[in-house]
């Protein structure tokens, strides 16, 4: 059986190239403790250290409660860390800013703005003139294939289309980094697969570094260069894994040996077989004799 550590020469060469590139996000010893009065403080993240290189696609995965969403919110500046530091392009992160775009699971499009005005939002609050913002926004809408829906309101769009608008809106600010917090989690399986392909295509065409939070193993292996695997309670780094699947990626790669090996390895880390055994339901017999379903 193939190991996830076996890398084909072109994959190894690609990782070597990525490591040559400048570091975009440098996270050092990051801690996050949530304190609420009357209850013991909970440690969401502990001593998180990793680096993301330019134009890398890093996926963060872990069991629920491992603080993966908190990590994205810390990098976005929506939460303040309890300790450690984060540098974006060498500058410390203090609070949210247009240099980090974020795509949320809940779409978060502004319902009172048309698709076009949603994409223009960041440009307009950033001081661009209306005409300039509109020109830029139309270009981004073209990139996500929604030119025809420029005048539509968010409630008229499907979930996948909403999320494409959200991606266009985040990219329109030309951020150094795109943070995606389980962006496709609310979509049906087919739309999700399609959105994953769209994302890879957009990532290829645009100079952007992506940190992608997910709980879906296949999604992580399909998208990522490297996968940051977190443990829960407290949230610590279990492993920072290099995905051995070569690029460009295709949906049918999910049956290749490299893909299976990588997937199996993460699964072992996240749901160890021992824990799976403990989680079994008790045995019950509430059926009629002769109609067993095996």
């Amino acid at each position, binding site marked *: 059986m193939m190991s996830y550590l076996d890398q084909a020469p072109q994959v190894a060469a690609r990782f070597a190239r990525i490591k040559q590139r400048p570091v975009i996000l440098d996270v050092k010893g990051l801690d996050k403790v949530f304190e609420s009065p009357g209850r013991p403080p909970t440690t969401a993240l502990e001593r998180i250290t990793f680096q993301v290189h330019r134009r890398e696609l890093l996926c963060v995965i872990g069991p629920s409660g491992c603080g993966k969403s908190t990590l994205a919110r810390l990098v976005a500046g929506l939460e303040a860390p309890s300790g450690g530091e984060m540098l974006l392009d060498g500058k410390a992160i203090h609070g*949210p800013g247009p240099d980090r775009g974020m795509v949320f699971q809940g779409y978060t499009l*502004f319902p009172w703005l048309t698709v076009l005005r949603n994409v223009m939002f960041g440009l307009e609050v950033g001081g661009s003139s209306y005409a300039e913002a509109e020109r830029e926004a139309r270009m981004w809408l073209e990139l996500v294939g929604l030119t025809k829906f420029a*005048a539509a309101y968010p409630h008229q769009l499907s979930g996948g289309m909403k999320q494409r608008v959200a991606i266009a809106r985040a990219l329109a600010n030309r951020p150094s980094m795109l943070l995606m917090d389980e962006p496709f989690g609310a979509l049906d399986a087919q739309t999700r697969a399609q959105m994953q392909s769209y994302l890879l295509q957009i990532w290829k065409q645009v100079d952007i570094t992506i940190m992608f939070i997910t709980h879906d193993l296949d999604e992580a292996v399909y998208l990522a260069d490297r996968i940051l695997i977190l443990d829960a309670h407290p949230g610590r780094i279990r492993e920072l894994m290099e995905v051995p699947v070569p690029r460009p990626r295709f949906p049918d790669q999910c049956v290749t040996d490299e893909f299976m090996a990588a997937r199996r390895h993460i699964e072992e880390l996240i749901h160890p077989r021992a824990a799976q055994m403990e989680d079994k339901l008790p045995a019950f017999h509430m059926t009629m004799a002769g109609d067993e379903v095996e």
Partner: protein
Amino acid sequence: MASNWTRPLAGLSPTASRGFWAASFLVPLALWCAISYLPFIWHPMVRVVDAGDSTWLTPGELVERAAFATENVDLVGRRARPATGLLSNPVFLPAPHEVARALVTGFTTPPARPEEPWLHQALWHSIQVIFWGFFVSSLIGVPLGILCGALPAMGRLVEPFIEFFRYLPAPAFGALAVAVLGIEDAPKVAIIFIGTFFQQVLVIANTTRRIDPALLEAAETLGASRRTLITRVVVPGIITDVYTDMRVLLGWAWTYLIVAELIGVSSGITYFINQQAKYRAYDRVFASIILIGLIGLATDLVLASLGRQLFPWMKTARSGWFTSGVALFRRRRKGAAPEKVAEEVASA
């Protein structure tokens, strides 16, 4: 269909919806008709038609049924001609057709005394008092409510006092308002203001707090400043709910009207109603009360329809008299073509 009406939150067909809407008016009207036109339901009085040989009954007079019966027993006992009469309701409950007639003639009948207002003058005066009271209240109350809802520090600073103040009944300030503002319209506007303002701040603040915090976070990651968060996210995000709140609050403002108009120099529809009651013209009293209700209902329907047109991003939004009017106006001024993109969206 019929079985669906008993299912909680079941949708109604447009026909059924209109039917129920009409029934909500027709049922009370039918009850009123029944009480007015079916003598066996209530009719505690007798309107004397022919006094007979009675010494104290006069034709056209309203007497209680028991008194009328006793008098007739007495008359028959004395071998005198008994009185005749028709069963009728007390003078304070006119029949629907009388009120309907008063609704029409109310506007055409000159006032009993020359210094009294016509019905339409009285109504217009009341509408102005309501408008100014509500307008001034909203001018301060809406921004203050939004700030209280958006900024917890501000809410904490302002709301406890307002929470206390809103329990003070607005009419209690009548004497004070007259002392400070005189006897004309200013104290009336002030009472409407006091009745509306404090509720308004609290209601708007609560509405503001219901905004989806994820929208604020999204705006922050797009580079919005704190000020921009309020002007470009909070305000547009809650505007449709605030609009609905305002419709409800406007209804409350009307309930303070009667008290407000009794303060200082009595005026407006309240004065009109009181005068008619003095003349025992209860059909006009009813007509005036119904007019207030009709004005309120009409205002609300117009505002609801306007709201659906003003906020095109709402799921119930549709174009109508207002948007087409504005579009016509724009086209006349600019000669611009209607937006083509919108059609593409509609077809997609």
